[in-house]
């Protein structure tokens, strides 16, 4: 399981039945609280620290949120750059998740 999620299940393999399944987040840092009262542009830096594997997507999401709130849009080349950066981020974090975090 990648990320801070604990999962516990009781499974009857012979009968193919799940008796019990529990999951619980094993981490709370309160980013929502920490982000309050800051310069909106800082959100891109702060929220990317939510996850060290997929920080880029949190940055992009923050910038999207800022754009929506302020009613602004990036120039076309900025949009292209952001998309390229996002694609590169996928190329980093998907293998990371697949081969390191989600193994076994």
């Amino acid at each position, binding site marked *: 399981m990648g990320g801070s999620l604990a999962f516990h299940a009781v499974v009857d393999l012979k009968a193919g039945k799940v008796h019990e399944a529990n999951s619980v987040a094993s981490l709370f840092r309160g980013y929502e609280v920490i982000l309050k009262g800051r310069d909106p542009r800082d959100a891109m830096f702060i929220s990317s620290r939510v996850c*060290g594997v997929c920080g880029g997507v949190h940055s992009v999401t923050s910038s999207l949120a800022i754009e929506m709130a302020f009613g602004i849009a990036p120039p076309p080349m900025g949009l292209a750059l952001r998309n390229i950066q996002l694609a590169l981020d996928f190329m980093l974090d998907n293998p990371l998740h697949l081969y390191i975090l989600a193994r076994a």
Partner: protein
Amino acid sequence: MPDQMLTVPMMARLDRPIEGETSRTMPDQMGNVAGATMDELADRLIETGGRAFMPGPLKKIVVFWLSGMSCDGCSISALGATEPSVEELLTGALPGIPTVVLHHYATAMESGDHFTRSFELAERGDLGAPYVIVYEGSIPDENLTVEGEPWSAEGSLPLWVGSEERRRVPTAEWVARLAPRAAAVIAIGTCATWGGIPASYGNPTASMSLMDFLGKDYRSAFGLPVINVPGCAPLGDNFTETVAVTLLFLNKQGPLPEFDELGRPAWLFADTVHRHCPRAGYYEEGTFAQEFGGKECLVELGCWGPVVNCNITERGAVGHMGGCMVAGGSCIGCTMPGFPDKFSPFYKRPPGAEVSAFTSRLTGSFIKPLRRISQRERNRTNLWRDKIPSGWAAELGGPTLTHRVMEYFYEKVQYAASEASRSPEARRRSTAAGTSLPPRPPTARRTRTCRTRRAAVARERGLPRRRELALGGGASSARLRTGALGNVLPESAHRVRFPRPGAPQGRIGGRVQLRHARARPLAGRGAAQAQRPRQGDERRPGHPGGRVAGVPCRRRPQGR
């Protein structure tokens, strides 16, 4: 080799169980699908890895990688380390460094109780090897949690011995339980070293750093205070290098590494990131970027580099590549105890830059033009004077009056008290010996007498006279003009020729083949050169004449 070494224990497991192997005797194999614990795998690796001789008393060292209020970014960046790499540490590939047995939640073979078992053994002191704690993420105040559910947990234990009911174990509790017997405690990342973002304004979990948690008086079993490798995320190399030298010390193979007052590796964090920044030259000349995307200094856009202890501009982010300012972003001070609050708003110019940027603008405004003048002059060889034998030169403007004046004084200062300018006689001697060009006469005279003077020098040295050809004017113009030296020849004598393979060539670099007229029979130095047998290279490199005397020209221009 690492591949092979890592697979050895896996293969060996099938036929040769290790003495005292616990995973086979534990009835519940659910948490251990590999059938071997990390310790057993490491034992097998050490046994079969072909490293009979390992310097130092330690064969292996156990590392408990605990992850508190973290984003796992420190694990990820450690994974990207190259010098040394994590694989090298895990396979014991580095001399003097014991094989590292890593208990990391993401790479461990075991899970559940099998995973926490080594933790408990370590706490009791039954591990059979010294262990190091690596802590990632900040430490919350678990007293604030609701209904005993921890802010951050790792594994679960029975509520009491034999109990069916379980409780999740806060990571902070593992630290408290393991730290007293640990050989060293290493905090990785800004969260673990200083508190970082979870401990910034707001801080609902009352987070703190590992140093805050363990206190000022904490010493490991080997007498070390907490070692801090900050960064958000830290450089992987910084971390693995610190681990490597610390293990060398623990294994009695090296001295105690140097740490600064905050427990940072001093050799990595003593310098500011600004000192090695590729943009620092722009800062010094007072050239500042007003928007992202340029190559100038980013201080106006919020770069804190001049006051930040960090080495990313030296080491690069991964494999000596990339890094904040190298990649075009400004420094937000992520390695610093004040991060993030003392560096935000991140896009605002740091207050200190008001003064320093103004000062470098001020000095830069007159240093920069002066440098450009010297730079331009140093882009000319001694022979060229103001005539450049490059077809591209026509596009560029000539030197201005200011330029000439500046250069005159510059040269005065440059040669002052040097060998070349000691006396006119010494100058003449060194010039005759061919070791230096004669210092120029004062500029006004030089421009007037340049041609005749150079001709005189050439005669004195017995050199072939040089005729420079340059394509003048625009691309359409076929007019060729002679250079500073020569007589103006009939145009037919200067037809553009392309070098033929095998033919002796005056000059190869350009498209135009330059020829050199030889005025009269060689005498003096040139004659001696001409008689000397030469093989291979038919040019005398660096010689003002360009051509080797004695190699016949296929066609010689008329004229002298």
